[in-house]
């Protein structure tokens, strides 16, 4: 039976999730047992050293990879039990994901990149994408391709894309890792604005500025095998 994937979940919870790549003696534990719960409107930072599993936890929460053990829930919906199509629907409607390396499609303009999630819904209108780019102060660069934008601008485009479908949660993996201090501040302001608008924001970062910015900090221990 197909579960109903609603975009307006209030809470995203991971319970005792772990992630191990490979098997037997070659296996690598990327995430030690971890539990976290994020409410809408909350800013949570996942802190820890490199290899502590911050990025893996972001991927597990965004259903980009399935946990080896443990469960992920949105309100009462058990997300790890969903089939591939339902998981895709969850990613499309309930979460927006921001990567450290931006992950913009290089052949598309900024506006087209931002509009992709709405194109997925069958809405070919570029108006909402243009409005989001205005909000991240890139209204004058919306027709430029990623290689014609600076790192900070690309990350703002990626952030605008993550907001396109008005998600309940934004999951950001080191969103300021490649940026200078001033640009980091701009990105954090935009994330705060999203949180103020009702989004639950989860940021994986080892930056002290980001830790200071967050409402709550979750420290992950090193699990590198």
């Amino acid at each position, binding site marked *: 039976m197909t579960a109903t994937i609603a975009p307006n979940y209030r809470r995203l919870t991971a319970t005792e999730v772990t992630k191990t790549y490979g098997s037997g003696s070659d296996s690598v534990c990327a995430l030690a047992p971890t539990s976290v719960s994020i409410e809408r409107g909350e800013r949570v930072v996942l802190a820890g050293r490199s290899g502590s599993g911050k990025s893996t936890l972001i*991927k597990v929460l965004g259903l*980009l*990879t399935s946990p080896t053990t443990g469960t992920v829930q949105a309100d009462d919906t058990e997300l790890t039990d969903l089939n*591939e199509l339902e998981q895709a629907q969850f990613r499309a409607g309930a979460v927006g994901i921001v990567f450290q390396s931006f992950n913009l499609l290089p052949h598309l303009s900024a506006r087209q990149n931002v509009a992709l999630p709405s194109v*997925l819904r069958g809405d070919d209108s570029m108006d909402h994408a243009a409005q989001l780019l205005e909000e991240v102060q890139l209204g004058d660069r919306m027709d430029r391709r990623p290689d014609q934008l600076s790192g900070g601008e690309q990350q703002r485009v990626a952030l605008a894309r993550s907001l396109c479908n008005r998600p309940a949660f934004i999951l950001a993996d080191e969103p300021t890792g490649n940026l200078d201090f001033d640009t980091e501040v701009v990105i954090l302001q935009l994330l705060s604005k999203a949180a103020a608008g009702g989004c639950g924001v989860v940021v994986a970062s080892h930056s002290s500025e980001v830790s200071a910015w967050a409402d709550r900090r979750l420290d992950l221990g090193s699990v590198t095998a």
Partner: protein
Amino acid sequence: MRTAVRWDLHRYGRRLVVLIVVTAIGTTAVLFAQSLISSGSSHIEHRDLEGAALRTITVRTRPDRPDAPALDDAAVRQLSQIDGVAEVDPLYLSSFAVKELDLEQVFTAASVRTVLPPPIVVEANSSPLPLQAGDALLPATINGVDLRPYLGKSLPADFTRKVEANGGVQYRHTLTVVGLYDPGYVEDGPGVAYLAQSDLREAVAARGGFSADNPGAQVTYNEILVVATDRASTGSVEKAGQAQGYNGVSLDRAIQGLPSSLRALELLSRILVVVLLLALLLLGASLINTAISDRSREIGILKSIGFSSRQINRLFLIELAVIGAGTAVVATTVATLVVAAIGSRLANHAFAGADLAAWPLVPPAAWLAFCLAIPIVGVVVGGLRPARRAARLEPDIALREW
């Protein structure tokens, strides 16, 4: 989805060019073979297979055999002496121009084959055959011009007389149009004007700079028709002529030979279709395989924003269908033009004993449709498996594999 497909299409770039070139070459080969088959079959259907025609052996010059005997009066005498020969009919070809106020045409001039005369559709007087000096038998239409208004009228015809090594002057001869024949009759090529043998001798001699009294002694004939006494003797007459070095093929044998040549061509054409289809399957698969390695990151990004495996699979397949359709249209258009160009270059050559002069090499409509469908089917089917494999990549793995 359409928007996403449109955004993605131009990324195939150079690989598309390879696909189009391979498809165009294959389609050209298939359409050329099918055009020959179609035209050849039509040629057989329109041949006059009755009466003396089947006893006729056409002797032509052999450009590849300079040692072969010349088609002159001595050849006429030699061929006449073969047992079983009823008649020997030497034929000349020449040309003349008509420059009336309302008619400007250049005609190929030939003499009437006594055993295979053109079908006359309208005549000025009672039976115009055999043609007398000054008579002309024209096609009812030429190059879209209706010649019926000229029936029974005299036309000034300009022939060329050789006066020095590379020069000539025009001389005028008045011809009377005594009849018009079905323009579908193309044994001597399209739009031929048939003249009396004496007029043609005079024209050929003038063009060669010889005396008109006995041009056959100095100017070789274009071909010589040898008519056997009966159909059973045709084979032995043909062999005897060939033993003397003449390039003679009986109409009977040409007609029998043509279908077997066409069958061989049909088989070759089918093999080409299979090869083309296999090539397109491989190219389609390779196109998608390369796209996967180039675009695994893109697949990961699309999945991270919510595209499902099914949607990504569909995205790839629609892209392939559009690529296949575009390739099909471009390749088939190019192939049709190339076939037409080859057809015009091959005019006046023979294929399996049949003259190509009158063959309009137009690819059959069914094969055109088939050639339009092959690239779509080939590319889409070839890309099915790799597209499905690409679509099933886990987002995390796709994002890591760039």
